[in-house]
């Protein structure tokens, strides 16, 4: 049936060069009953690779809970959608752009932002907020400075231009990322809950329409080198790094949202990884239909592009949509007004096949389901391995009398210090909805025309996952939910980026599986379904994998935006207290991980233990207390334990002027273990003394511990032992100076 195809032949070697394994090649041959054409081979390589097929991860991802009363759209679409009441919904998703950002930090990060924005407005939502979760190598590694500067400028360059505020994120440093940084970007958008658009190509005869930037040879990856043999002129067409055009994307965003107000659109999907190939195949796959694409009609910006190149180009700022028959004119009219290319490039068919034609010839004729449902799926071997010592390295550290220097060291470390040199490069206020500047536990965005606010956070602790993937996974979800609860928000649902090493290594798959199981347990216990997500494997350099780094992005809802708290102390003389699980000590001396890392460069032991039941109770109490107006501030304990949480609450007070006087509650273990230990399920709160009775009652009624530890005070932070011996007393200006200077050398 493909008699007229004139491309060169393909063979096993070319398939291997495309990253297709030998058994996968056999599978293709037996499915087709012939050799694939070069363009078909390119399509297989794109659709069957890890990024599109999730072939190593699918069996594990199935474990996540994905439904709930508010879930309008779970995983499988461009983004998840969750109902927030009042006829509104929030669409959100997180994506990684790790490898491109390491090669070209500015453009890699910028196009990462562009990609996730398209995922959101494809759903019919207007993007309202971006968050970025970043991991760099050691602060003193030779490339770190360059990468930090480039990535941050790239996120700023794209997000600021398009006018979506970047409202929060996280930034971490660890030598395991020296050769493979992580750039994960999350976007949330608002939409009407009854106007969700999906990536489906239904209705035979409906036109397939290409809108957005013309196609060039951008990002046709290593595979294209193998294709050079197919065409003599291909040799000088080297693959190129994608450059983002945020201005064009802004136009695309406005044009798409305007078009979606009409009922002309049947399905729409952005062209992300594997561009035209994946958008066409996935849209047909979801609808159970077929597609014909006529490449001669695809707008292009370079001469002489081959079908192979058209199908695999990753040029940015493009979308594919299916419109109702006869509605082409309306689509054209809108895109012309926004000065954007628009072209009818094919139509929907009912034979379940993807056909690609050019110059009157057929270059592709494949059953869609071979590319989607029948893509390979692997149960890769797993074998847990422990790479870090099992003993808690705290014991190897001499215990100091004066804990002040340790606190200053933690605050002055790039991972623990002030991140404003990063987020002040982001326009975090555009759209006038941002209720708190970045720097707190959760970012808060008001929802205009309602009393509501959305809360958002990203969290992940690779060290915990390295020490114990299962517990690390639980802790990541619990911390994200806790960050939302500490701002007064009810966690609704989550997305994730699962950044792992090479899945062909059993130790990596064991980490992956363990982390997912832990996350799943926490999702179930905290009633937070997973509605979207992304897997990034092969994060490795020279055969060494990064620490397993699942990043959780979570969205919560505050019904009345006036009832919220920040992390900073607000008033002198307020009571400082801790909410904690009632059946545990307020501050067990355990796992002072960040402290030992910063002071001694050692890691080991176990991540903090966690009871999900108690975690849920602590969060409920915190939210209710905020809802009843009892709290002045709330801040969860995480890296650096109570010591860092206290310091951060002081630093986030007005003018960083409020400190506190605190006595550590009685308990077993070392003083530094109490102060810097990273016990889970704890929230540091401050409140007016008149409110303490009520909070104590609320906590008791919910089986939650409430322990007062001191008072806020002007100008200094003093912490003493249970018997009144001072651990340190530091003027706020010293804390501020250490904290402010932390990123100094890097930006």
């Amino acid at each position: 049936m493909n008699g007229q195809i004139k491309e060169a032949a393909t063979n096993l070697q070319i398939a291997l060069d495309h990253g297709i394994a030998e058994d996968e090649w056999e599978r293709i041959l037996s499915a087709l009953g012939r050799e694939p054409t070069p363009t078909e081979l390119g399509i297989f390589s794109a659709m069957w690779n890890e990024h599109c097929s999730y072939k190593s991860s699918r069996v594990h991802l199935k474990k996540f809970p994905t439904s709930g009363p508010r879930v309008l759209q779970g995983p499988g679409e461009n983004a998840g959608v969750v109902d927030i009441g009042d006829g509104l919904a929030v669409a959100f998703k997180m994506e990684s752009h790790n490898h491109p950002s390491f090669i070209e930090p500015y453009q890699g990060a910028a196009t990462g932002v562009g990609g996730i924005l398209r995922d959101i407005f494809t759903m019919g939502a207007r993007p309202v907020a971006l968050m970025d979760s970043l991991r760099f190598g050691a602060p003193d590694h030779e490339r770190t400075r360059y990468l930090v500067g480039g990535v941050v400028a790239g996120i700023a360059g794209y997000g600021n231009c398009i006018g979506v505020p970047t409202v929060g994120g996280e930034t971490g440093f660890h030598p395991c990322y020296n050769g493979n940084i992580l750039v994960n970007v999350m976007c949330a958008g608002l939409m009407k809950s009854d106007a969700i658009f999906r990536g489906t190509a239904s209705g035979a005869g409906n036109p397939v329409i290409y809108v957005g930037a013309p196609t060039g040879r951008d990002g046709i990856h290593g595979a294209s080198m193998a294709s050079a043999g197919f065409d003599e002129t291909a040799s000088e067409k080297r693959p190129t790094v994608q450059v983002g055009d945020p201005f064009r994307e802004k136009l695309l965003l406005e044009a798409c949202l305007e078009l979606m107000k009409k009922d002309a659109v049947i399905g729409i999907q952005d062209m992300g990884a594997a561009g035209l190939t994946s958008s066409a195949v996935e849209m047909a796959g979801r609808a159970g239909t077929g597609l014909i694409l006529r490449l001669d009609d695809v707008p292009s910006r370079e001469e002489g592009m081959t079908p192979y190149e058209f199908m695999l180009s990753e040029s940015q700022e493009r979308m594919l949509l299916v419109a109702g028959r006869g509605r082409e004119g309306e689509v054209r009219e809108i895109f012309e007004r926004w000065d954007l290319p628009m072209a009818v490039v094919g139509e929907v068919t009912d034979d379940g096949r993807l056909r690609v034609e050019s110059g009157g010839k057929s270059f592709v004729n494949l059953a869609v389901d071979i590319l989607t449902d029948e893509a390979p799926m692997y149960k890769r071997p797993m074998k847990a391995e422990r790479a870090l010592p099992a003993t808690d390295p705290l014991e190897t550290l001499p215990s100091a009398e004066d804990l002040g220097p340790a606190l200053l060291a933690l605050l002055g470390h790039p991972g623990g210090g002030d991140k404003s040199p990063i987020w002040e490069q982001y326009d975090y206020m555009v759209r006038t909805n941002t209720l708190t500047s970045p720097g707190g536990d959760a970012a808060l965005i008001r929802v205009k025309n309602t009393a509501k606010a959305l809360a958002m956070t990203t969290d992940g602790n690779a060290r915990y996952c390295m020490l114990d993937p299962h517990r690390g996974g639980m802790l990541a979800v619990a911390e994200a939910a806790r960050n939302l609860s500490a701002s007064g928000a009810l966690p609704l649902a989550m997305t994730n980026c699962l950044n792992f090493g090479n899945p062909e290594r059993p130790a990596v798959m064991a980490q992956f599986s363990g982390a997912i199981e832990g996350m799943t347990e926490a999702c179930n216990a905290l009633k937070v379904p997973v509605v979207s997500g992304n897997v990034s494997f092969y994060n490795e350099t020279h055969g060494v994998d990064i620490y397993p780094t699942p990043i959780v992005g979570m969205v919560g809802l505050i019904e009345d935006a006036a009832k919220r708290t920040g992390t900073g102390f607000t008033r002198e003389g307020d009571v400082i207290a801790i909410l904690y699980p009632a059946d545990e000590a307020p501050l067990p001396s355990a796992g002072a991980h960040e402290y030992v890392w910063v002071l001694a460069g050692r890691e080991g032991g176990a991540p903090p233990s966690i009871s999900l039941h108690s975690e849920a109770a602590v969060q409920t109490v915190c939210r209710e207390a905020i809802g009843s107006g009892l709290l002045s501030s709330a801040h969860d304990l995480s890296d650096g334990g109570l010591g860092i949480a206290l310091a951060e609450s002081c630093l986030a007070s007005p003018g960083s002027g409020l400190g506190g006087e605190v006595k550590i509650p009685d308990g077993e273990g070392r003083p530094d273990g109490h102060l810097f230990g990273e016990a889970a399920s704890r929230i540091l709160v401050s409140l007016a003394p008149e409110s303490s009775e009520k909070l104590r009652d609320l906590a008791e009624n919910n089986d939650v511990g409430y322990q007062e530890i001191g008072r806020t005070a002007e100008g200094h932070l003093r912490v003493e032992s249970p018997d009144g011996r001072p651990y340190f007393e530091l003027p706020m200006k010293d804390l501020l100076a250490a904290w402010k200077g932390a990123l100094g050398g890097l930006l």
Partner: protein
Amino acid sequence: MQFAVIVFPGSNCDHDCYHAVAHVLGQPAKFVWHKERDLGGAEVIIVPGGFSYGDYLRAGAISRFSPVMKSVADHAAAGRPVIGICNGFQILTEAGLLPGALHRNTSLRFICKDVYVRCMTSRTPFTTEILPGETLRLPIAHGEGNYFCDAETFAEMEENDQIVFRYCDAEGTPSPEANPNGSLGHIAGICNTGGNVLGLMPHPERASEAALGGDDGLRLFQSTLSVTVS
């Protein structure tokens, strides 16, 4: 008072300005697409911030050729109020409605944060209700806010009372430390000789509601209400 917010391809503070005047101030407002020429009888023109044409080549360089700019120029020439905010300020200088130019911040970085500005004159329609010497807290968000003009122009502007806002510290004292972008004379905003056209880098529309952390910016829009429209 009828407001018009001009929308260029890439403008992204258009809705914020609209929100501030229509929903917070409660005045009639409408958007005017850059290809239109009819300002529809608007009394006050807002050229909003954002990245018109992506800030490509130079911020504001391409927008100034939009058809609507002729109408804006006529409006200005008639002595009626025009305010250019951030990218709007850049567009007004490129269009020659205000003197000077805005180039890259000395830090070479985009900067988003709250700053203080000192009001230098009440003579513009946007500062009638603000006393000279008063300090406002307003957000900035720009990469090219570094104001420049030649010495002669600067002297003329001082002479003609055209410097409307200067970056200052919380106490109201202009200083290099309080100047976020290296602008000449700590200039944050200027007006034309007639006083009716104001350009400024800070975003008053983002500081128009206490819920967002401050409402000093609203006073610029409020001021226009006391201007008698002829």
